[in-house]
């Protein structure tokens, strides 16, 4: 690969001569901004985003540069100390769209550059309402940050500010405040070039310019909320998160979205055990910097009031009573020890983690049970959202809970219960009434063990009801649609007596076999990867924050 050596603030860096264009992927000349990023030197910017086409309109990334002076022989003229003579360019350039050349020197922190930044900020703030106390972006606002770093303490603009529309609805999920907008066009470029929905544009002229949807159109594709993330100021805010919590209070947990098989990397923002928002986390192997609106807004059920939070057991005369975990697990273990092979079945959700599915597959072998998962398919879009809405279908296949054709065994299980062959059913995280195993059929069972998060048609019929955890309340791993194993982490505490499924499954297996599988997700994962071909050579610490693909680990 061809490289170019440049000097940035006195630091010599060798960078590739070309870098892939974020949209087409074709090689494009490396820009000063990319070179600075590679050298870990931050050049303040607004309109530049490494995943979007270059616009070069905010002028915030102005830098000074110099190039070597060439002699008549096209060789650099040297100074007396043998360093090449540098001719400083008379004017600054925007780092985001100026390509580098060999021997170039870039100055990003000279007094002149800082003065230019101050001047640019002064222009950007001319019509800015300065309403940080009511702005949701405060705390993660680039305008706020750079003004703090480089801005002028006073404004010379004493005239009346231009007022523009506020609280304007661009679409069903995005609110636009035109006064705060600095017209960087990141949102326009994102929706046009990344999503392919050319919904936004700039209307009016001069100080009255504003972002708007085209006439008669709504900004309502499935990726609108990403524009809120990339908006460097508070112009675009989400209707969902708006005025709900200030961002500096939120604890950020690196985890994975569970709304489809894609497994987009996210950050959960929570405070005092309440989840406030999901934001995308960069992972170029999965979701780049983006997240679909469907997955992003699919978190409210976690804080629902009717979560199952106590262990229930049904007595002989059919009355539900609360029991403690130890009694329930001991009684279930005692019962399962006496189950004859071929008389039981396990229906485990593909929303459980790899570790939990593996523990269930161990239980399956132990009691000689049939098993399957419930398929969950819906409409996919052409970007991130996949038709498979289970986050861990591949995990269920790899651990042997279901076959490649997920759900093919369900009819079989139903028939066998009806015929009275199956007497024990263990259900984890699914509503089996929905897939056709009606309460009448379930009443033929001797034992129905259910673990779930929210009440459904199956949970009241259970002999033992064990409260489980949402993915945000436990740790573990998922295997996504492209066989990438990714870690998810605990953001909040589960409600009441609910516990992670792997914890009580592990206890159950210890009572039945005396073989210890570990009690944390890490211990179980490391034991599991030793046992399953698909996962071998992986371990918990190697997974990191962005995961490893199964094929890669096998090579």
């Amino acid at each position, binding site marked *: 690969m061809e490289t170019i050596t440049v000097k940035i603030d006195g630091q010599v860096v060798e960078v590739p001569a070309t870098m892939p264009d974020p949209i087409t992927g074709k090689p494009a000349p490396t820009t000063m901004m990319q070179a600075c990023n590679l050298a870990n030197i931050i050049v303040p910017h607004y309109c530049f985003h490494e995943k979007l086409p270059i616009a070069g309109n905010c002028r915030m990334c102005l830098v000074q540069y110099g190039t070597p002076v060439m002699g008549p022989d096209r060789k650099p003229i040297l100074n007396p100390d043998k360093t090449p003579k540098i001719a400083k360019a008379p004017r600054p350039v925007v780092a985001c769209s100026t390509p580098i050349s060999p021997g170039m020197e870039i100055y990003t922190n000279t007094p002149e550059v800082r003065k230019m930044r101050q001047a640019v900020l002064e222009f950007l703030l001319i019509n800015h309402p300065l309403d940080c106390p*009511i702005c949701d972006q405060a705390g993660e606002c680039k305008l706020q940050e750079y003004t703090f770093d480089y801005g002028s303490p006073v404004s010379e603009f004493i005239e009346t500010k231009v*007022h523009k529309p506020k609280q304007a609805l661009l679409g069903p999920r995005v609110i636009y405040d035109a006064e705060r907008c600095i017209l960087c066009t990141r949102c326009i470029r994102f929706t046009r070039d990344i999503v392919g929905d050319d919904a936004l544009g700039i209307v009016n002229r001069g100080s009255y310019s504003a972002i708007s949807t085209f006439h008669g159109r709504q900004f309502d594709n499935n990726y609108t909320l990403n524009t809120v993330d990339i908006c460097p100021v508070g112009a675009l805010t989400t209707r*969902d998160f*708006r*005025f*709900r919590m200030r961002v*500096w209070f939120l604890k950020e947990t690196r985890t994975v979205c569970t709304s489809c098989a894609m497994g987009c990397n996210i950050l959960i923002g929570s405070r005092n055990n309440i989840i406030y928002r999901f934001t995308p986390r960069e992972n170029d192997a999965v979701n780049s910097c983006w997240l679909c609106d469907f997955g992003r807004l699919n978190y409210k059920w976690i804080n629902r009031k009717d979560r199952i939070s106590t262990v229930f057991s049904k007595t002989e005369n059919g009355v539900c009573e609360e029991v403690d975990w130890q009694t329930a697990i001991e009684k279930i273990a005692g019962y399962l020890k006496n189950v004859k092979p071929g008389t039981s079945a396990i229906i485990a959700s593909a929303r459980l983690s790899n570790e939990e599915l593996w523990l269930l597959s161990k239980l399956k072998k132990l009691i000689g049970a049939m098993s399957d998962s419930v398929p969950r398919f819906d409409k996919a879009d052409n970007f991130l959202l996949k038709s498979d809405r289970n986050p861990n279908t591949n995990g269920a296949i790899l651990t042997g809970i279901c076959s490649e054709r997920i759900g093919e065994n369900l009819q079989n299980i139903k028939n066998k219960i009806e015929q009275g062959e199956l007497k024990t059913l263990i259900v984890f995280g699914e509503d089996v009434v929905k897939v056709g195993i009606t309460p009448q059929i379930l009443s033929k069972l001797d034992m129905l063990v259910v673990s779930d998060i929210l009440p459904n048609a199956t949970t009241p019929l259970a002999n033992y009801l064990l409260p489980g955890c949402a993915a945000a309340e436990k740790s573990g791993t998922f295997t996504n649609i492209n066989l990438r194993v990714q870690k998810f982490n605990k953001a909040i505490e589960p409600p009441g007596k609910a516990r992670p499924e792997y914890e009580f499954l592990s206890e159950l297996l210890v009572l039945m076999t005396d073989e210890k599988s570990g009690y944390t997700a890490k211990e179980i994962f490391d034991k599991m990867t030793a046992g399953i071909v698909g996962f071998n050579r992986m371990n918990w610490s190697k997974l990191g924050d962005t995961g490893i693909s199964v094929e890669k680990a096998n090579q």
Partner: protein
Amino acid sequence: MVIKRHKLNLLDSLYITAIIGGLQVTLRHFFKKKVTLQYPEERHLVPPGYRGAPYLVKDQEGRTKCVSCQLCEFICPPKAITITPPGPEIDPSTGNVEKRPKDFKINMLRCIYCGLCQEVCPEEAIFLMEDYSLSGTSREEMIYDLKKLLSLGGVHYDEVMKWKKKANEAKEQKVFPPIEE
């Protein structure tokens, strides 16, 4: 260090001089102006700038000045302040301010009267006032809510009225959307 005791002379050892000295002081105060207050019926007058209990204020037009920016909640060293933000529903009654706290709680048992909330407030909405002896019969009673804080805080005269100024500017330019005539 051991301090050596002086040996008392005859006059001192009689103690009568000391008693007379003491009685002189008593007698002097007997004829002076009384300084004792009949607390709690009578209250000590605090000097201006005294840091008593923090309360919320309204401006002269009756607008709750707090916009729920939660900076005081952030800065509060003993974590006495809890604010419930208004949430995403657009409330037309807030006008161009857009935001007003749904609830604002100060746990007066936790408050240390440091005044950081007043210092950090960008809207001049919270002030440490003159109350210094708060009491209640339960812990719950000592957690003051929005209504109570506003009624105790009263009106703070706002010379600038920045939000009103902004709204008027926008009205003149005829572009501000929540214009209600």
